[in-house]
């Protein structure tokens, strides 16, 4: 792969088999403790990839590396054939924990339009406003657009943040545990939304909800410091136990997997 140039990434045509993210021999250490080792993974334009693995297995770290919030200790990450800094313009990102202050005086609309950010000084255009409205509509919270973010429920806030990730019309959506704040009744419609979005963008998401994997996703990656498996979901079952390093009850019938052994039974 060699050196990655900061080449412009405009006018990328949709090609479902095109590799849009590629990591090569990727290592990440935190204070000399390896978090990720030798990760070689590629994401294609029509992927719907679930990343699973135990807590502390490096899932969030991998996403943060792809969007450039962390720098690799070793190895290369190529995003849309360019560097992370250029390529991430086509990524919509939903962090696991938001760092902002819920008391911040800002409306839902103003949060979501930040996803449209392009460059300094110029103001948001009419198109930015239109796309923001579209994104709010897509996740079904258009009527909340003038609310202050402090007045929302956890589930509504999560949808605001998904809208913010969608606002830039990404070619890749990276979601870090998107379902953690979504109640069970909403889950199905949330996954259906993802399936719909997957027609025009790749989706990579971190989840503990193995039940959902069986129904909606195309591919699975098991991550526990190393990449234990990356491929179609059908082949993943045996590898899961290896990644989790403990007996896992995993089924393709909507029963959640167990990470810990049973207690006192």
């Amino acid at each position, binding site marked *: 792969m060699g050196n990655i140039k900061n080449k412009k990434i405009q006018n990328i045509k949709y090609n479902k088999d095109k590799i849009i993210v590629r990591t090569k021999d990727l290592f990440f250490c935190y204070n000399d403790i390896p978090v990720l080792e030798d990760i070689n993974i590629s994401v294609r334009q029509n992927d719907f990839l679930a990343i699973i693995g135990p807590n502390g297995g490096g899932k969030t770290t991998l996403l943060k590396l792809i969007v450039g919030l962390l720098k690799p200790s070793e190895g290369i990450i190529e995003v849309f054939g360019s560097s992370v800094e250029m390529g991430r313009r086509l*990524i919509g990102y939903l962090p696991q924990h938001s760092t902002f202050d819920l008391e*911040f*005086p*800002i*409306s839902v609309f103003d949060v979501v339009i930040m996803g449209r*950010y392009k*460059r300094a000084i110029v103001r948001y255009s009419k198109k930015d406003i239109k796309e923001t409205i579209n994104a709010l509509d897509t996740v079904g919270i258009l009527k909340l657009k003038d609310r202050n973010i402090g007045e929302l429920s956890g589930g509504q806030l999560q949808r605001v943040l998904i809208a913010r990730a969608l606002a830039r019309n990404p070619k890749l959506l990276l979601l870090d545990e998107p379902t953690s704040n979504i109640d069970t009744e909403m889950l199905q419609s949330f996954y259906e939304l993802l399936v719909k979005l997957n027609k025009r963008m790749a989706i990579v998401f971190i989840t503990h909800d193995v039940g959902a994997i069986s129904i909606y996703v195309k591919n699975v990656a098991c991550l526990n410091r190393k990449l234990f498996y990356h491929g179609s979901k059908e082949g993943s079952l045996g590898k899961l136990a290896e990644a989790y390093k403990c007996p896992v009850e995993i089924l393709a019938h909507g029963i959640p997997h167990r990470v810990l052994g049973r207690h006192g039974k």
Partner: protein
Amino acid sequence: MEIFQYEFIRNAMIATILVNIACGIVGTFVVTKRIVFISGGISHAAFGGIGLGYFLGLDPIITAIPFSILTAFGIGFIAKKTKVGEDAAIGILWAIGMSLGIIFINLTPGYAPDLFSYLFGNILTIPFSDLIIMVVLDIIIVVITILFYKEFKAISFDEEFSKVAGVPVDILYFLLLGMVALSVVILIKVVGIILVIALLTIPASMCRQFTNNIKTLIFLSMSVGIILTIGGLWISYILDLASGATIIIVLGIVFLLSSFAKYLFLSIKKYKSSK
């Protein structure tokens, strides 16, 4: 209105407006981005710049400008790029800045006139030349804010996401700290180094309870700041008290009252809706 015939009163009124333009803008970002203590550190470290002015025989306000900007960048650099931690960086540079100020004043022959006015402020002794400096610094702050309003709002709200979206987060963070440094310089003559932080934070903290829009917050803080500064000045004139401290006390009392009013309002609303 006969008091307006005095030049020092007119200057004080102009200074009040200039100070609150800076405070309304910078204070809003200081409060919402939660860099109040960084700002406190910058303002105290600016004392080193005041001392340098005495030592070099220059107007201390002029030497305070580069000194506080450098301190601001120093705190920002240590906080962002090293593992020292923001609060430790603030503590360290705060103390170093003040110590340098004391040493410079020690090294200056004779005694230091007006030293107290830099520490505690005296809005009634602001010369016309300082007003010019304040106007220039205000213009710089206003222009930077108009250019980068969208970015300042983004990094104040969510720095991590802003970075992913492509906002040059670090540059803007340093620019913001630079604006804090400039507003500290503007404020020194009015309330003094020790009380700068109050005028930067109280109006914005008070007004954020009543709006969910940053732009409104800026203008609201400016207006409230101007009214309360004039109120404080008037009370200090009547009661013959130190102007800087009286202004802060007035701000503080109104802040407490407004918080209480907001609390009462919310409680009544809750009570009504529960019935």
